[in-house]
């Protein structure tokens, strides 16, 4: 007995014993203590991830290969003290690196802007201050390649138009916080591109409606962009659609926004920038829609992937067929294109190539790209075929 007591005391004096004990206590303890049914463990919502948490998967022999991934995703959402740990971790790592929250500028009246100062791929201040301006050589090359596309499409009797969705900062720079009041460039990248095109390719239509947006802001009491999202709202999309149609000969003109019928269209919580910023559940934001008398909205049919969405409207005033090559901004333009044109097809994240128009081409091609993503035009090549074939005919 005495020997056993001595052994126990010796063990208690051994740091190795304590390290092993405490190490495994640290690993097992949280799972032992955690009780998700107990209210005191449920935090006031510290995080908002804009999605539902995953359910615990059932193990089934016939689906065993999927079980690790599904369980991993579930556990990622459900491990003990997750919300507290994630919240604390983001607070600590934020100053260390360009974490999500560092990519968002918090402006006045809840306006959020996107910033990416290092790679400058989606950097609104970079465009605003002229940091992203191309040199003459590159800018001219881009215009020439777009003009080549226009000429080749014209040979096929296809109209071509480029529309640049302005950055939120280009329209709402007065919402920037005082400490981030950037110096506005005399000319930004989009404006420079439009000017270059006017000079060396006057028939190439590039629509950049930032000025129209700024003018319209003062005339209507509604916002044109979502406050907590990087995108424009339906009103901004309507205005951009109107400017595109004005640039295409023979188009049916939409009434200006200030004289159109604007109606509430539900609410949404937060936005992509709000999610990047993190934090608790955001407030709701009012959405709007534009009704045009005599024109009806048609549903958007979605294909099995995001690469193709369609509207078909036999009653549309313009019987032409349109293909819109788009990024995320033109999603909000879909109802208005669908209102105007008999058939519209929207291709996401792909650029127009000659090989697309071999069979059953449209009457109009619109290339929509957001201002902060203009770097995407640097490798625009209408003649590139192999990759185009793979990405288009997926």
């Amino acid at each position: 007995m005495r020997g056993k007591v001595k052994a126990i005391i010796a063990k208690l004096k051994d740091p190795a014993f304590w390290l092993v004990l405490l190490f495994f206590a640290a690993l097992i303890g949280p799972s032992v203590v955690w009780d998700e049914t107990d209210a005191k463990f449920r935090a006031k919502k510290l995080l908002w991830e804009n999605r539902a948490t995953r359910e615990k998967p059932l193990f089934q022999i016939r689906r065993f290969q999927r079980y690790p991934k599904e369980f991993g995703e579930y556990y990622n959402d459900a491990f003990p003290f997750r919300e507290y740990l994630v919240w604390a971790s983001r607070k600590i790592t934020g100053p260390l690196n360009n974490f999500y929250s560092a990519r968002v500028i918090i402006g006045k009246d809840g306006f959020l802007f996107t910033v990416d100062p290092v790679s400058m791929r989606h950097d609104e201040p970079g465009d605003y201050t002229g940091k992203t301006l191309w040199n003459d050589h590159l800018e001219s090359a881009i215009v020439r390649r777009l003009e080549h596309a226009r000429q080749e499409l014209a040979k096929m009797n296809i109209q071509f138009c480029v529309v640049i969705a302005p950055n939120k900062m280009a329209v709402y720079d007065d919402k920037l916080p005082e400490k981030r009041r950037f110096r506005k460039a005399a000319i930004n990248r989009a404006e420079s591109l439009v000017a270059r095109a006017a000079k060396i390719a006057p028939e190439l239509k590039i629509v950049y409606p930032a000025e129209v947006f700024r003018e319209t802001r003062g005339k209507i009491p509604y916002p044109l962009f979502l406050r907590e999202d990087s995108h424009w709202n339906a009103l901004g999309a309507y205005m951009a659609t109107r400017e595109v149609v004005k640039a295409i000969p023979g188009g049916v003109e939409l009434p200006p926004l200030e004289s159109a019928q604007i109606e509430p269209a539900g609410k949404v919580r937060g936005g992509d920038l709000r999610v990047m910023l993190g934090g608790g559940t955001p407030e709701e934001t009012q959405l709007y829609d534009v009704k045009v008398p005599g024109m009806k909205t048609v549903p958007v049919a979605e294909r099995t992937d995001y690469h193709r969405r369609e509207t078909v409207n036999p009653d549309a005033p313009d019987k032409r067929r349109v293909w819109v090559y788009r990024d995320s901004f033109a999603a909000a333009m879909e109802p208005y294109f669908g209102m105007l044109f008999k058939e519209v097809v929207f291709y996401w994240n792909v650029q127009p190539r000659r090989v697309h128009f071999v069979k059953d081409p449209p009457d109009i091609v619109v290339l929509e790209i957001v201002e902060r993503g203009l770097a995407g035009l640097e490798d625009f090549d209408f003649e590139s075929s192999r990759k185009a074939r793979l990405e288009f005919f997926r």
Partner: protein
Amino acid sequence: MLFSSIIFLWIFLPTVFLIYRLLHDRFRNLFLLIASVVFYAWGEPKMVNVMLFSIVFNYLAGLGIEKAAPRWKKLLLILCVGVDLGTLGIFKYLTPSLLTLSRWFEWDFVVMNVSLPIGISFYTFQAISYVVDVYRGTIKAQKNPIDMGLYISFFPQLIAGPIIKYHDVEQQLEHRTTTWNDTAYGIRRFVYGLAKKVLIANQLGAIADDIFAIPGQALDSSAAWIGVLAFNLQVYFDFSGYSDMAIGLGRMFGFRFMENFNYPYLACSVREFWQRWNISVFTWFREYLYFPLGGSRKGELRTCLNILLVFVATGIWHGAALSFVAWGAAWGVVLILERVLLKKFLDDPRLRIPSRLYFLLVVALISVIFCTPDLAAAGRYVKTMFVWTDNPALRLSDVITGWGWLLTGTAVLLCGPLQQLVPPLRRALFDEEHIRFAEIPVLLALLAASILLLAGNAYNPFIYFRF
């Protein structure tokens, strides 16, 4: 499954360790084998069959080679090594090679995407070392399939090494004990490794990634150098951290693995560097490729050729792209130059500082090949480093914050200089006999900080509201 994941730390490791300690010796290897297969299958549910095939095939191959008549032994060995390398070749090199060829020759066909099983490079080389050693008579073929399976699949070193040669663990597979000190030492190595990976390497990686994302025309010289520094520190702390975790986990279960890193950035030559960096891979290539090619026994020209071949093979082992081949060849060329031209200078103790500067410059240059998408981009990057390029629009504070500088400075100190300046620190970190009470709160704090940062990776918002 990764060591640096909540699921491993909070579920897998404590469960496996507790069951292991409760089991009788007779069942421990079987249990570890099952746990290792589960560990692997968790991350690679489809590709676990490739690993199981490797176990069964090499088990039978070892028995076959040992029993074969002398005139058939070599042929069998060639066949077995061919199957092992062929399996590695199909999964690791076939798809990238076909894609490269189709780009060069503008072939227009669909290339089947063959998934790369995690860890295949490591366990294949372990298997090859086993069959070669059986052929050489260095070891007896393992009769127990469980022990063989455990040797190939043991989870601490399965995914990223160190590459364990069979003769180093043969005895330990059959007889090993685990004391409280062993477990505590293993925990210490594991926690230090985890901290190196999560607290240092991952954060440096974020800095390096941001810099490498800067478009070429916007990159300036200071950002380029910071990027290279952050990248090299990241790679060291990531890889050596993982090795520390593997060695620590092995020790918890009674296995003593070889050291894989020995403060490589303290080297004063590339030759010395490769004796300190990824030691298990370097010794594998030396033992199973360099020596069979003749080593340094066949004259100076042949020695240089052997060095080049070994390092090109090392590059290919690291990855399938041409840039890996170039990376390996670059190391080979520098080693040859050191052997032929610079030996006298590098061996002179009075020239330690210039030697070290030379070495660090070589590391910086060659690492650019590793972290740029292709050789042309590497060339442009190196040009930006050495031909002063300024971009007033790019602020240094956009590239690296104050905390980033602190982290980088800490990493520079901890990658070897501090241990060299303070030898008692180095001895304390590697002391196998004593865990001090004062060390326990440090280790627990590092563990807590690592878990906190790992938890942050669970943040997974759905950003896209519209697309």
